[in-house]
Every structure is written in structure tokens, then in C-alpha cells.
């Protein structure tokens, strides 16, 4: 009988702990949804106005951007604080199966863990900074509303991708990021170069999207669903182990690597990164300096046990990272405009981050990613006033800045120096190589098919099929 009160006390304590744990989980789930609700609210503010072809004022846009990102950021920080204080490694938020058939599941699921919280807080902090910067930088710019609509799409995509716990949720965020990136590269509508560059980036993105789609299908086939925790285990990141050992696992890993390489502009897809600088500076900063370019690294960090399960895949990631870092360093050294130089500097660091991932140093990769994103955002945002900063620095020290120190390449033979210079200037001939090996044969082949089609229908109809005239031909 003497033991009864203590049993009661234990039961009461257990019950209290259980109910407090449940309420904690409910709070975390609510906070996760609030993080996503911010960008959704941002889009929701724009859509009714867009539908009636009305533009919001700049002041209202600034308020909406600040308010919605602020809510998301505050929720993410609260969630991180609660998880740290309670020692929770992972919290999943299931929104349920959206589409279910016997062979197909489309599930929306978010997860809070070290990786997702770090990336989502980084995203929100940098987007808040860029949002505040862009409201001034783009003041009275034609397309101000359009920029912030696309900014909202990007933010939504990044938040969804960062918090995703199923491959289909990740795919949705991934695609939204890609679309908004491309449309912002072609932001300056009146010139042909941004449109051409936007199309080129879109082509690369579609290739890596196709790889991700196939990887997602394989993931469903291998484990009967798209949940990452079925693949990498329920322990919170980075303490994951691959749960599955299927024959297609390495092929699936390879598809994930291709998708990541395309999104992060690794060799051989690197050519699109400097072209992406056609967009306005705020979008260059956030997309290609800070967040979008790291999304490939984020993907590989999320599925890291898959890489660990196949050593050749890890070696491939290291090789891709190393070659991209060397290529970007050499190309960046010969750039003559600041945004291109910064883009190649970004790529060098992204390459090194991939090396860490390939070597299994995932925490180091995450720390490097966060530090690099913050530094590069700052550099991109200061890029338009670089000369001003330079003069200020000279004024502060009261003298001219000295000439650049002797670099290692000046110790090489002149022939080798010239070779390296041309290699950097031509960007390792990567674009020419892709054009020669893929784009031109594809276009040539299908143009030949088209000519044959026109000839055949012209012969059948006994009348040639005429192409529509261009403006010049009409004139």
C-alpha cells in the first residue's frame, strides 16, 4: 500500500509528460504551418490584384513583404528554440496523402530538423534582407510588382523545398524555385539577351527536373512511397543510415546527383550561372549567390545516406565538386564585371561544399553553406556600389590601394599562362562543348525532320508550306 501514492504520482507525471509532449508537438506543427503560411500569404496578397490587372503600391508591397516574411521567420525561430530547449532532433508534420491509388501516393509532409530549420531560417533571413533592399533598389522600376510576385513564388518554393520530408513535396518547391529564377533572369523584357539566357537556364533546369522526377519515381518504386525517412531512417539529420539496399538505389542516387548538379551549376552545367546575372541585382544575390545555387547541395545533404551506400557515387560528387571549384576559380580570375566574378566565386565555394558532402562531412558542408550564403549576399548587394566602396576605403587609409600581389600563375611559363587565361576566358569551352555535342545535333536533327515534314505535306498538297515572315522580311 505504501507504494500506491508513488505509482499514482508516476502515472500522473507520465500523463502530464504525455499531454505536454502532445501539446508541444501541436505547437511545433502549428509553427511549421505558419512558416509556410507566410509566403502563401504573400502570394495571396498579390493574386486578387493581379486578377483585376491592378498593381499594388510600392509602400503596400514593402509592408506585405515585411509582414509575411516576419511571421515566417519568427515562427521558424520559435520552432528552433523549442526543439533546442526540449532536445528534440526531429519533428514531422504530415498533411496527409493528397492523392492515393494502389500504386501511387502523393503525400505532403514537412519536417523540422537541424538541416531543414537551418536552411529555412537562412532562407527567410536572406529573403527579408533582399526584400528590404529591393523595395528601395527597384524604386519606380518598370516591373516592380512583377519582381515581387516572382520573389513570392521563389520564397514559397524555397520554404517548401527546405521543409520537405517527401520527394514530391521537394519537387514542388524545386520547380517553383526554377520557374521564378528563369522569369527573373528574363526580367528586363525589352532586351533579347535576358530572354535568350533565361531560355538557356530553363533548358538546364528542365533536364535536372526530369532527373529529379525519375529519381522520385524510383524512390516510390523502391520503398512504396516518397518519404525521406523511409529512405534515410527516422533519426534526425545528420544521424541517418540508409534503410534500403535495393538494386536501383545507386541509379536513383545518380539521378539525384544529376538534379543537384544542374541546380547548383556544377560542371558540365556551369555555363548558365554567369548568364543568370542578366536579372536585377537583388535576384542575382538571392538566387545565384545565396539560396538557389545551394539547393543542389541541400538535396544531397537530405539524402546523404544514399551517397554513403555507394562509394563511387560519393567519389563522383567529390569529382564534380573539385572540377567545378577549379573551373570556377580559373574562370572567375579573368572576369571583367563584378557580378560575373562573384558568380564564379560562388561556384568555387559551392564546389567545395560538394566536396565536403562527397567526403561525408555533412555538418561542415552545412556550416560552409550558411557562411557562404551570407557572405555572398552581402557582396552581391554591395556590388552596384563597389567603386564607391573602393574610394571610401582609399579615403579612409589616406592612400591608393596597392597593386594586386603576385599570383601563383605568374610563376608559370608564359605559354601555360596564356593557356590557362584562354581556358578561363572561354569558360573551359563548356558552353561550346554542350552546344556542339547536344544542342546543335538536337536542333539540326529536328530541323531536318521539320524540313522533311514540310516537303512531304507540300508534295501531298501540291503547294509549298510557307514559314511566317519576320518583321524585317515584312518590311
Amino acid at each position, binding site marked *: 500500500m505504501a507504494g500506491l501514492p508513488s505509482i499514482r504520482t508516476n502515472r500522473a507525471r507520465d500523463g502530464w509528460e504525455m499531454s505536454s509532449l502532445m501539446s508541444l508537438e501541436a505547437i511545433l506543427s502549428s509553427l511549421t504551418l505558419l512558416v509556410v503560411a507566410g509566403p502563401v500569404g504573400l502570394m495571396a496578397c498579390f493574386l486578387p490584384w493581379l486578377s483585376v490587372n491592378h498593381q499594388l503600391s510600392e509602400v503596400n508591397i514593402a509592408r506585405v513583404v515585411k509582414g509575411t516574411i516576419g511571421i515566417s521567420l519568427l515562427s521558424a525561430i520559435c520552432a528552433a528554440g523549442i526543439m533546442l530547449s526540449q532536445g528534440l532532433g526531429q519533428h514531422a508534420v504530415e498533411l496527409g496523402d493528397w*492523392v492515393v*491509388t*494502389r500504386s*501511387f501516393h502523393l503525400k505532403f509532409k514537412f519536417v523540422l530538423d537541424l538541416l531543414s530549420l537551418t536552411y529555412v531560417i537562412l532562407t527567410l533571413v536572406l529573403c527579408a534582407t533582399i526584400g528590404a533592399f529591393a523595395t528601395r533598389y527597384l524604386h519606380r522600376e518598370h516591373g516592380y510588382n512583377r519582381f515581387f510576385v516572382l520573389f513570392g513564388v521563389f520564397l514559397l518554393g524555397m520554404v517548401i523545398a527546405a521543409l520537405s520530408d517527401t520527394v514530391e513535396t521537394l519537387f514542388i518547391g524545386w520547380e517553383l524555385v526554377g520557374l521564378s529564377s528563369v522569369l527573373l533572369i528574363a526580367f528586363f523584357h*525589352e532586351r533579347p539577351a*535576358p*530572354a535568350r539566357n533565361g531560355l538557356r537556364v530553363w533548358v538546364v533546369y528542365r533536364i535536372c527536373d526530369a532527373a529529379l522526377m525519375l529519381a522520385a519515381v524510383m524512390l516510390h518504386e523502391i520503398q512504396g512511397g516518397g518519404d525521406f525517412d523511409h529512405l534515410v531512417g527516422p533519426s534526425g539529420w545528420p544521424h541517418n543510415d540508409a534503410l534500403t539496399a535495393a538494386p536501383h538505389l545507386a541509379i536513383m542516387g545518380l539521378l539525384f546527383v544529376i538534379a543537384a548538379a544542374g541546380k547548383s551549376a556544377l560542371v558540365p552545367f556551369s555555363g548558365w550561372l554567369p548568364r543568370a546575372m542578366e536579372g536585377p541585382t537583388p535576384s542575382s544575390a538571392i538566387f545565384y549567390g545565396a539560396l538557389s545555387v545551394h539547393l543542389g547541395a541541400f538535396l544531397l545533404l537530405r539524402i546523404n545516406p544514399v551517397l554513403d551506400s555507394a562509394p563511387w557515387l560519393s567519389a563522383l560528387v567529390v569529382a564534380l565538386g573539385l572540377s567545378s571549384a577549379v573551373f570556377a576559380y580559373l574562370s572567375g580570375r579573368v572576369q571583367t564585371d563584378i557580378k560575373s566574378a562573384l558568380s564564379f566565386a560562388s561556384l568555387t565555394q559551392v564546389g567545395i561544399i560538394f566536396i565536403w558532402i562527397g567526403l561525408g562531412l555533412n555538418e561542415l558542408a552545412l556550416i560552409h553553406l550558411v557562411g557562404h550564403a551570407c557572405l555572398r549576399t552581402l557582396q552581391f548587394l554591395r556590388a552596384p556600389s563597389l567603386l564607391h566602396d573602393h574610394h571610401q576605403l582609399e579615403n579612409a587609409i589616406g592612400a591608393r590601394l596597392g597593386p594586386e600581389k603576385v599570383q601563383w600563375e605568374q610563376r608559370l611559363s608564359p605559354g601555360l599562362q596564356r593557356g590557362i587565361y584562354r581556358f578561363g576566358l572561354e569558360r573551359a569551352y563548356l558552353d561550346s562543348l554542350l552546344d556542339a555535342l547536344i544542342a546543335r545535333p538536337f536542333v539540326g536533327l529536328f530541323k531536318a525532320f521539320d524540313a522533311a515534314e514540310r516537303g512531304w505535306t507540300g508534295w501531298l498538297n501540291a503547294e509549298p508550306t510557307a*514559314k*511566317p*515572315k519576320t518583321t524585317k522580311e515584312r518590311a
Partner: protein
Amino acid sequence: MTGWPYLLTLTLLAPLAGIVATMLTRDLHRARRVSLGSLALTLAAASAAGFDAYIGGYGERPLVLGAFAIDGVSALMLPVIGMLQLLVAVGTSKVHTTHASSVRLLLATLFALSAATAVSGLVLIGSMTAAAAIPLWDLHSRRRSLRAYLSYMAPALGLLLAGWIGISASPGINTGLMAAGLLIYCGMVPGHAWAPALFESGRLGSALSFALPMMPVMAVVRLLLPSAPADVLAVAGWACLFTGVYAGGLAVVQDSARRFYGWLVLSQISMVMFAALQATPAGLTAALCLWGSAALSLVGLALPLRGLEARFGALSLREHHGLYTQVPTLAVCFLVAGLGCAGFPGAIGFVPVELLVSGSFEQGWWVSAILAVIVMLNGIAVMRAYFSLFTGKRVAASVSLQATRVERISIASVVIVVLMGGWLAPNIVATRHALADQILIERASAPH
């Protein structure tokens, strides 16, 4: 369900009444309004009939007018057909509308609806034959050569009819004949040359109202699946898969906006046909979902194209036109509908495309890979056309080229359908999946 059988009667009679009323109305503008009104009535009746059948669980199939009935397959397609024909009509500019064009559109609507609800194979083939005559009428009225169109469509209908007549005697060969006829009818390689020629030299409205209801998909479900051997379906499926890549690649390199659109339509139809011919629950579910989503996205893509053609004439994709600042509404519609075709997340085509790519994996990973390539090519083609038409140049117009009120309403409808349609996916997929199971059970019980 049978609660309101007269809804289907009204659906079929509304375009017929519209034809009579249009022909009796002398004033052209009034005739246009009459045809639009009858198409709107058709849409309303078709939606009500489809909803009524859905509520009733597709149970009984009472005959209407002696030859037509509504079932699970047609219940969803009736409103889709009604909507796309109405959008085709709305997208035709006033200056291009004639009594004949209105009558052609109403006839196309009638034949598409009758094909969708036909109970017997003969009525279905008859409706398809009658529908095939409408582009012929259109080409003739424009004094364009009929030879390319006739040299494909006549054998297609001949093969279809011959196969149907002999199907009970020798199902193997005759289903093969029917499959060949259907593949030519919907423009699969190598029987495809009529399609880009029709899109280029015919009126876009006639081509759309003929191609987009995708009557061959209905024929596959009704005529082929119950009795065709697996080999016939597999060979036909390969032709569709090849067409998807071929047409997708050609859509990417086109110099003319019309031909780009024509090849894109073929590429999309090929995916729907491939899915239908797989004869698996996943494939058939994907086909039944993709059918409607592709048709609505494609008609949405046609709206801005027709709007631009009405303003600027035939459009070349060899140069940048920079029309975004002049017609931003059309640009947004083009992008949204195009992304719907490319299976972009959140749009109407996302779930069906995912379902198709995922469902095809059991036939081999490379089948899924080919489908992913088709989706990729369609996405690239759409974005290339978008950049070419709407960006890259500063254009100053002396008059306002903004979308008209009717255009704005139709564009808003398309954008809402393409974006909101994606959110209805769970319910649509569930009903289509049950339907696919039912069709495949019937196929399994039939002798091959």
C-alpha cells in the same frame, strides 16, 4: 445515375438547336451571340449531366435518343468538351466569325458529345467520321488543298470501320486494324502529316474543335480495350511514345507559332493515348485524368495565340516580339496554360503527369524516362515560344492592344481552371481509378 436523364438530352440538343438558330439568324453579330449562347447552354447542361451522374455513382445507363448514355468515362468529359468548345468560340475574333464558322463549331461540339456518349461502336465511329468532315469543310472554304488531310483521314476511317465490322469474326487482326485507324486519326507517327498541315493551313478554331476532344481516346476505351490483344496495345503504345518524343522535339525547333502549337498538341495527345493503351490501372487512371487536363490546358494555350494572331497576323518564332508590355494578360494566360501542359506543380496537369510517369515504371524504367523526356521537351517548347512572343524587344503601339472584356473573362476562366483544377486532383483521381479498375475487369473477362 438516372435522376435527370433529360440533362443529357438537353446537352445533345442544345448545339443542334444552336445550329438551326444560327442559320436562321441573318445578322452576323446576332448569329455569333446565338451560337455562343447555345454553347454556354451546352456547357451548363453537360456540367449538370456530368455532376448528376457523379452523384449517382455511374450506376444505370438509360438510353437517351436511342443511342446515347452517360457513364463514368463520359461524365467528366462532357463538361470538358463543353468548356473547350465554348472557349474556342469565345477565342474566335468577331471579324473572323461567319455563319459557317459558327455552324462548324456547333457541329463539332455535337459530334464530340455524341462520340463521348455513344453506346454502340457504330454510333461512335459515325460521330468520329462526321467530326472528321468538319476540317475538310473548313479547308475547302479557305480554298486550301484537301489532299494531305484526305489521304490520311480516309484510310483511318476505312481501317476503323473495317476493323469494327470484322471484330467479332477475328478479334486479333481486326483490333489491329482499328488500332491503326485510331493512330492515324489522332496523328500518331507515321500517320501524322495531316495534323501539322491542318493546324497551319486551316482555321485554328476548326482544328482545335476537332483535335482537342481527343475522340480516339474514347474509341480506345470503348472499342479497343475490351477485346484487343496485349500485343496490339503494346505496338500501338510504342507508336504513341515515339510520337511524343518526335512531336515534342519538333515543337521545340518550330519557326511558326501555329506549327509549334500543332506539334505540341500531337505530343500531348500521344501521352494520353499511350496511357490509355497501357491497359493497367495506373496507366488508364492517368489517361482518364490527363485527357481532360491536356485538353483544357491546350485550349487555354490557344486563347492567347489566337488573340495575338488577331492583332498581329501569323507569328514567327524566329524573332522576339516583346509583346508582354502590350498584352500582359495574354502573356500570363500563355504561361499558366503552357505550364499546365508541361505538368508543372500546382497546375491541372501535375498529378496526371506524375501518375503517368510513375505508373509506367512497371513497364521498365526507360519508359518512365522517355515520358519524362516528353514532359521536358514540352516545357522547353512552351517557354521558348513564351520568350519569343512576349519578351526581347521594346514595342510601342499607337493604339491600345489590351485584352478585350470577353478575352479577359475567358482568360480568367482558363487560369482558374488550370490552377484550381490541380486542387481537385484527389477526387478526380479516386473516381478515375475506380473506373479504370472497372474497365480492366471487363477487359479481363472478355475473350481475346
